[in-house]
């Protein structure tokens, strides 16, 4: 066996070992209920903002505390605490991806990703002065 083949085998073995360990890092999408089963492990939970429930962000008191309620894919609503500032445009988000863990009945989030209405799909031509539009069409 040539040295090249030995190196290749060693590298392939090492690469497989590393890739297995990389897969170990991969996260999964969970619901609040399934995340609660492993309270000290971080997960990603997808859901949408529950607009009927209060949002609290009072920077005067604590600029690193933002709480709101999210409804996950299974339809359960939980309180979420994010240790940071309230993301701008939060209300408009269609979908929220949280990273974090369950603590008692609260989801403690370290990262919020928001999916806002796409700029391409929902584009509508803005027309200035709709009244003048009518008169033009009337002609």
């Amino acid at each position, binding site marked *: 066996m*040539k*040295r*090249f083949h030995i*190196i290749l085998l060693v*590298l392939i073995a090492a*690469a497989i070992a*590393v*890739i297995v360990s*990389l897969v170990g*890092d*991969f*996260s*999964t*999408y969970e619901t609040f209920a399934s995340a609660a089963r492993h309270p000290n492990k*971080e*997960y*990603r939970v997808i859901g949408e903002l529950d607009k009927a429930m209060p949002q609290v*962000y*009072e*920077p*005067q*008191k*604590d*600029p*690193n*505390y933002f709480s709101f309620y999210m409804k996950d894919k299974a339809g359960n609503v939980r309180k979420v*605490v994010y*240790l*940071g*500032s*309230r993301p*701008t*445009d939060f209300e*408009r988000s269609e979908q929220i*991806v949280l*990273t974090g863990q369950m*603590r008692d009945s*609260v989801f*403690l989030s370290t990262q919020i*990703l928001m*999916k*806002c*209405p*796409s*700029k*391409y*799909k929902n*584009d*509508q*031509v*803005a*027309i*200035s*002065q709709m009244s*003048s*539009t009518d008169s*033009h*069409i009337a*002609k």
Partner: protein
Amino acid sequence: MTTHYIGEHLFPGQIGHLAVIIAFISALLATISYVKASLLQKQNLPDATSWKKLGRAAFVIQAVAIFSIFGLLIWIISHHYFEYYYVWEHTSRDLALKYLLASLWEGQEGSFLLWAIWHAILGLILIRVAKQWESPVMSVISFAQCCIASMLLGIYFFGYRVGSNPFILLRNAGVMPFEPGPNYLSMIRDGAGLNALLQNYWMVIHPPVLFLGFASTIVPFAYAIGGLWMKQYSEWVKPALPWAVFSAMVLGTGIMLGGAWAYESLTFGGYWAWDPVENASLVPWLTLVAGIHTLLVYKHTGHSLRSSFFFLIISFILVLYSTFLTRSGILGDSSVHAFTDLGMSGQLLVYLFVFLIPALGLFFYRYKHIAAPSQEEPLHTREFWMFIGSLLLFISAVFISFTTSIPVWNKIFHTHMAEPVDREFHYNRIQIFIAILLALGTAVVQYYKYKQESWSYLRKKIAIPTLIAFVACVIFGWLSEIHYTKYGIGFLTAIYLLFFVSIYAVVANLSYIVLILKGNWKKAGASIAHAGFALFLIGVVLSSAKKQVISIDRMGMMDVFNFSNKNENPRENVFLPFGVPVQMGDYDVTYIGDSTAPGDPKIYYAVQFADRRDPSKPLFTLYPDILKNTKGMQGYSANPHTQHFWDKDIFTYVNYASNIEPDQSDTARYYTHELQVGDTVFLQNGYLILKSLYRNPVKPVYHPAPGDIAVAAELSVFSGGHSYRADPIYYLRGNEQGAIDDTISSLQLYLHFAGIDPQAKKILLAIKQIPPKDHFIVLKAYVFPFINMVWLGVAVTILGFLISLIHRIRQQIGSRSSIKKSSYAVQEMET
């Protein structure tokens, strides 16, 4: 009956679409002709030349068509022809001229066009310089042009739309809210505009450079394919090498320009976030650099030819893969800046396989014919370790691709895997070890010789640099004070190891230039590039491991979880009430005001930094801003502002501000005061004096009517060591009274002249001041130590590439003219 629409300019669009079709057909024709020419050339048949000429003509026509498309797009954009969807979607009337180009490549079509332009230019150069390689190389490039041109076609074949036409009309794009009448264009006052985040000079320079990098990977690829196809397995190496160096140089520059952009104007908090889009452009660069090294090995020793083929082929394939990832919409949630889906993912996938399958098929089919010396390279030679280095680069690329491709794995295996929760550490914990080995390699391997066991030579020559590096490591290791314990002592050890090895690489490469090359700069390209890479690594280590968040909040009250350790609640945002200094690191930081300018969608927040030990002297003021109504977001997005020092950067951005949601902050009330001239009113942080009253005031916002009786109050306001003047106006127009208010926005002071009592010689002045606690920003601030090392390292690396590129081109010209000379000599002898 067809409607006649008023005011449309259809001519440029018709010409444009015609040009797209011409570009497509002539690229197809060029492909066919060049393939035919190559096949004939392979058999040494005489007709090859006429086919080649036909191919040339077709390619030139194609290039002219591509340039015309570009010119026409610029034309319709600069004339604000909003009847075109592309113009409407990506520009607006108020867009500054300098962002015209940026708006051109905001969309997918424009960026494909950019790619096609670079291919066209590279093709025209190759027609001039490629000589006997012209036909096979141009076959590949013409075919690629054909594929890209089809991305702009926008024509339906059997119900499937091929490409997206940039000249499509707004009324045909399916975005109109009503059936367009003949006069619809008069109602389209303005376009949707360019995303405000993209309105900066980085957007003007980063995409062209990056796309030149992407586009140029096809040249070494085409040479490699040409070599396999023509069965000239070794002759392609020499002409391909400078192209590979050029491509790696430009692609690397493009990637790091993207990093600089992210750092300067996005709020990732850094220049690299292992974002899938960033990774997708890094991976082909890694394999390309691996390919350059194996090409060099082959050139000097005859080894590693097969791996050279492999690396250069996959570099281009990976560029296609990266295009697929970023443009098909498959990355979706996992990336901040992927393009959105244009419905072309199927087409993109087809092109990926159209190149992948024949290229790798040909490679494996001809694998046995590619020369490989039966004798293995000895252990202590340069070629052996260069080959190992290339393998390491390749392995690094494999690891990065593996995680970046999670959405692809999910599609193939129907799994639901998500990105790692801690993305950066996920990549860093592996890549740091590869970086350590690579840095060590760049330090040591060049001291080996090609083709001979040179262990004792290496030991002798490397002793002095090693000694210097050892001393440097002790000194800088002691000075560096890296205490990055977030991921434990193991990772900290790796960080120190990388730091030391990088210092070693800088010293060893500089020593090599001085001791071995005796200062011969022409040959020092590789050493300079390696030293630059090591400097870059040092910059990465120092700026990330010593990166410090200085905006730590110490007041937070809503800590419901009783966090025991700092890592769990890092409290990285600080509350800055107006005018009140807050301690941050070595600074006293004060929010001193904000400003807006008409036509500029930004609110700038002035944040003053003063030395803690001497707070009376402000050191500098930063103006991070918030963008209102960023396109597609309708809300706010933050833009950082950075103070640069030679040894560190102070990086700030505003995460939240009281005045971005004005309805919430405006809880203060007006209080009315009766004042005589000379009276004083105390304010929250200062006082106000009524200096005088005067008639007939002049103010831009006050438009006097005949018969107006107008009085202005001259007010002097003193606050925080500054003085201000305000002139609110009160007027009588017939029986009606009116007022023109004045404000001092930096004090959040609103002044309303409410009335006059002529008998008592008093005026009524209503004053509202928003209290500092309701007038605030939430700021995040970092210190990046030695970030300039990162940019310096990049610049030196590029310089190294450039030197070696010039050296390679000179060699080529030299060898070509020497061939000419020798052929002349032969001719002379014959005559």
